[in-house]
């Protein structure tokens, strides 16, 4: 219980801190979207629209109100979980986001898992054999991984694994809720394409953190005491890099969310990324605003969870 109360206070403090961040973030996006040239109402009205109809649409969507009034109205509704309606389809934006959220998250989580499962062993190998040929190979591979355009990798994967050999589907996604196996099957190639950069990032960060620890005074003392290298690595090295790993995971999720936008385009996956690209292009601003809002909340929430986990891994953090 005693250990919990500073942690609770930390959560409380973070909550207070994120409110201005969210308000500011949505304000910035709202402001950017209002810079748009051209008459939005004319686009919405479509063919055959009379001047009167355009004016009516303008009134209907409150496009004539002052900027701050429009923003205030949006924020007030957003607080009550109403992200307003899409200009294009008139569907509630929140419904659309909730519908597509699982598809994108499947890719992101898949890519994160691949990054960790492949990246952690490689990072450990490289760190424990620092300076060897193995290290050089792993390090250069990770340099390639960081510089690799993920959509290009995706194209190559589609051309070989799915079109030439027919191992995986080339397009589309299946909803996890209706067919988990099919959903994972469809998510394999996009996740791999997305994970290339993630693997490289995990390897690089883990390697440098481990090398630092393994060359520290403290570990050298342990060696002197006669502990086996394996025991030192497992008991002391990895425990101490957990903080680094948490940081990398936080960073990766935000980056993978961004990367999913392009990957979804390559595979024609109906996720949040393709939704925001489409909405931005057709100027469906409630949708753009809603997706950015969701992603910001998500990133902030993940950062908060990671902050909490820091205190679990390293209790000293909570005292600060």
């Amino acid at each position, binding site marked *: 219980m005693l250990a919990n109360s500073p942690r609770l206070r930390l959560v409380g403090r973070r909550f207070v801190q994120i409110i201005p961040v969210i308000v500011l973030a949505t304000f910035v996006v709202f402001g950017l979207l209002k810079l748009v040239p051209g008459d939005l109402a*004319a686009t919405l009205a479509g063919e055959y629209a009379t001047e009167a109809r355009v004016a009516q649409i303008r009134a209907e969507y409150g496009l004539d109100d002052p900027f701050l009034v429009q923003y205030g109205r949006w924020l007030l509704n957003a607080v009550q979980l109403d992200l307003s309606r*899409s200009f294009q389809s008139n569907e509630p934006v929140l419904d*659309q986001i909730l519908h597509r959220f699982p598809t994108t998250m499947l890719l992101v989580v898949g890519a994160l898992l691949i990054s960790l499962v492949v990246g952690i062993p490689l990072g450990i190998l490289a760190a424990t054999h620092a300076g060897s040929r193995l290290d050089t190979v792993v390090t250069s591979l990770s340099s390639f991984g960081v510089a690799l355009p993920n959509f290009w990798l995706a194209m190559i994967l589609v051309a070989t694994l799915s079109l030439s050999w027919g191992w995986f*589907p080339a*397009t589309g996604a299946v909803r996890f809720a209706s067919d988990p196996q099919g959903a994972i099957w469809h998510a394999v190639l996009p996740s791999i394409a997305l994970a290339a950069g993630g693997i490289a990032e995990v390897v690089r960060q883990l390697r440098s953190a481990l090398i630092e620890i393994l060359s520290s005074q403290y570990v050298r003392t342990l060696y002197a005491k006669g502990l086996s290298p394996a025991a030192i690595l497992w008991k002391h090295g990895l425990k101490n890099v957990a903080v680094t790993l948490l940081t990398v995971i936080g960073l990766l999720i935000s980056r993978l969310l961004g990367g999913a936008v392009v990957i979804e385009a390559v595979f*024609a996956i*109906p996720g949040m990324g393709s*939704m925001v690209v489409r909405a931005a*292009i057709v100027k469906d601003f409630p949708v753009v605003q809603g997706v950015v809002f969701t992603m910001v909340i998500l990133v902030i929430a993940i950062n908060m969870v990671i902050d909490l986990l820091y205190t679990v891994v390293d209790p000293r953090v909570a005292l600060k």
Partner: protein
Amino acid sequence: MNAPTHLANGRVDRRTFLALTAAATMAGGTALAQKRGGTLRLSAQSNPSSLNPQTGNSGSDHVILYPLYDTLVEWDYTTLQAKPGLAEKWAYPDPSTLVLTIRDGVMFHDGTRCDGAAVRYNLLRAKNDERSNIKSDLATVEDITASGQTVTLKLKSPDSALPLILSDRAGMISSPKAMEEHGRDYDRRPVGTGAMKFVSWADNERVVMTKNDGYWKKDRPLQDGMVFQIIPELPTGLRSVTAGQNDMVYYLVPQQKQLIERARNVGSAVGPSLLCVHAYFNYGRAPLDNVKVRQALNYAVDREEFNKATHGGIAETTSTILPRSHWACATEFSGTFTYDPDRARKLLAEGGHPNGIDILGIGYAEQLQVQQQEVLIEQMRKAGIRLRWERYTGPPTPTAFFAEKKGDLLLAPWTGRPDPSLTYQLVFGAGSYFNAGRGEGAPGLTEALLASRASDDLAVRKEAFRQLQKIVTENALHLPLLFRPELTAFGPRVKGYKPNLLGKPKFEDVWLEG
């Protein structure tokens, strides 16, 4: 299929088309083994603008609307002549009155009856509702009355185009009860009488339908359900069929024919279509208010080369807005604009631009469209026309040109209408949305338009359309390029697909094997 040999001369004429369909039918053994069941999965290029036929505004919606709604009038697949649909017959007792007899006993998906009153409700709403996008379709209708299964339309002026207009959006009949109940939300909860009942629509993802057990047409529907998966990039759509995630993809571009031929287990059908790839002109202002400049643009384009580069050489190049095989086509104008850069330069000089001219085009940013734009840049450059493009994606593209009046021309396909008078009216008519300048492009056009609808005698109408096309061609009111054949690709299980002349696929005869 032996399609390539038929298409070797670069044309799909009606005879070839008939031969092709016949071949497809024979090969498939249609009559013998029609099977029921299975869900037909289709790749559709665009999200429907609405599933309410009256409020939608995209020509590609029809393919998704046809299974949900019956139309009052249907058309023959090969000639596009009117034939009975929900209306089992119709007649003009006098030139200003049209009487429809509605088929008895047809039910809407919500269990209500489709009678004369329901049809009247739909037509009135199409004509008067503020959100209706098809008001102009019914502009000649003065008054509508209904009793029992009979609906009577009183017309302001004789209008022989009406029956085929009623095979389009205006003739798709919705349940009045559902329309009243849902109001604006009806756009997303369609209730018609069609072979398929609506299940769900996830935006830019998929539209799902299930079969209507009480459907009035004998032995239909053949499928248990239909799913339209929305995949905006055509190559990805085709890939989804190649890799087996979908059964069919339609509206492919002819270049993709070679991709289909290389793919294992993927068949294809090529049909003619009214889809005209052309550039709309804004002739309401300089520089395209000058007929010499408009003509120069038309002579600056090498349509055959454009066809080869962007349509695999199998499209029908054109100088008119109707294909040669269409009954109303004035074929004498079909080849008016030959490739002649020198003549184009001369016309430009005569029009006051001896040093060439700068033209700003509006176009779609989608890859295959960009390719067409790039070919036009090169061709026009040789005639001293410096063409630049400003690109948009999706609905903002036409809006930029027609509503915001950006650019001098817009490269976008016209999907065609069942009755040709509507095509001329919408594309060239004074005040029409698709006429960016809104003015009358040439003297006499308005009268010629009226004349094309005055009689229901085909020969008289044909002559009226000849006059109309003459005005359009002489004044070079647009830049017609070619008719894109309707190319459909399908997986090994798909049987019985037949293309139609309108070029908007219907799937009522398609069934799935195994």
